[in-house]
């Protein structure tokens, strides 16, 4: 789910860079030097994990894990997603260099929202709340990314309305898969290494 090179008009992709740059500057300022290599290592995991294909009927889709990045990394999720997209553009030619800012907004902002949704779980006393809220965070992260994608395309002119609608529809099955995988992964992390989900995950790696 990337916006490709050449689709967006200059005012939209430059706007994307401005917004992404603003969020990056705000989050990078809060980062400490010791977090830098750690976020990179975890970004590498998400990069590799997003290459995993999940079968969907006759075809297969690859994992996005937007929601899980938010759940695990919290505020630094945006930086991680920006890095992942940069590497995808440079190494695989997925997405694009000019569309990088727009793509970072499209996936990074939903990741931050997923983090917000997941941290609400503490207010609820229900069974399997990590799984439930993980699933909601994963699904809504994907849905939001779909809405952003459709929005960017619609902003680019009337000719892309049709593409925008189809792109949004294509997100529905992905949403279900993402929700399930994120829910199960959150439940697993809660069982095996609960510190990771406590918001200060980077400190939790100290032992």
């Amino acid at each position, binding site marked *: 789910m990337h916006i490709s*090179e050449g689709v967006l008009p200059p005012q939209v992709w430059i706007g994307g860079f401005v917004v992404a740059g603003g969020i990056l500057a705000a989050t990078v300022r809060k980062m400490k030097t010791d977090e830098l290599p750690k976020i*990179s290592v975890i970004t590498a995991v998400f990069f590799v994990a997003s290459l995993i294909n*999940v079968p969907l009927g006759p075809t297969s889709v690859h994992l996005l894990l937007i929601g899980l990045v938010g759940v695990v990394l919290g505020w630094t999720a945006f930086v991680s997603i920006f890095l992942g997209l940069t590497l995808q553009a440079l190494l695989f030619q997925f997405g694009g260099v000019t569309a990088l800012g727009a793509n970072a907004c499209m996936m990074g902002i939903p990741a931050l929202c997923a983090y917000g949704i997941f941290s609400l779980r503490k207010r609820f006393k229900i069974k399997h709340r990590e799984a439930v809220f993980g699933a909601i965070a994963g699904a809504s992260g994907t849905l939001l990314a779909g809405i952003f994608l459709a929005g960017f395309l619609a902003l680019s002119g009337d000719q892309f309305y*049709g593409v925008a609608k189809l792109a949004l529809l294509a997100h529905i099955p992905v949403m279900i898969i993402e929700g*399930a995988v994120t829910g199960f992964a959150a439940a697993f992390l809660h069982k095996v290494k609960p510190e990771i989900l406590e918001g200060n995950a980077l400190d939790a790696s100290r*032992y």
Partner: protein
Amino acid sequence: MHPDIDKYAHITSPIHRWDPRVKIAFLGVLIITIATLNKLPLIAVAFACCIALVLISRLPVSFVTKRLLPATFLLLPFFIIIPLTMPGETAVKILAFSFNLEGLVIASKVYLKALSIVMLIITIMGTAPFTDSLKAMERLKMPSMLVQMTLFTYRYIFVFLMETKRMNTAMCSRNFIKKTNLHTLKTMGNFVGMLLVRSFEKAEKIYQAMLSRGYDGVLKTFFEYKIVALDYVKGSLVMIVCITLFIGDKLL
């Protein structure tokens, strides 16, 4: 798909010999120029220039075409969707559908622009080792923090690719087969979770190892770049192309 973009960085060509900083700066300007073009004839000229650059770089054609595939397939549906959904007068009625021919022009513009830019990225990234290109980007005043993180992430992608391969083999040897069902999703969720748990532990060890080798948040390199006059000559040629394309697009 394998992240071996710099597989052919060791061969020689005028592009390979070009100083990475000058190369990235000037071809970067070309990328931005192409991204702002609006007229089909000029986009076609830009496309031809990009093909010429790829040929000059002597990167194997099969390598380049394989890397162009994702962009190629992702944008093909545009040729059908845009003409079918775009409102306009030049529509041709085929059965019950109105097919807008103007949509085909728009789709080909997007398509040629995308392929041109992707070819340029392959030329930039394919003609120097990835780490050299990143160091050059840092010299060009890109935020050092982001460059460093990209470098670290790039380094560890290969480690975790091996790790996933190992875990995959372990799952296959227990007769796990991916299917469209909840069990597969649960297994994939646990798989990603396990990968994360391992990486958190690894991240701390890596950081300790870096500290013990004197890491203090600044990237240090041993080699220096040397720019010769020829680097700027190549740069000016690219600049002339950029200006011609830009003015042509405004005048036409």
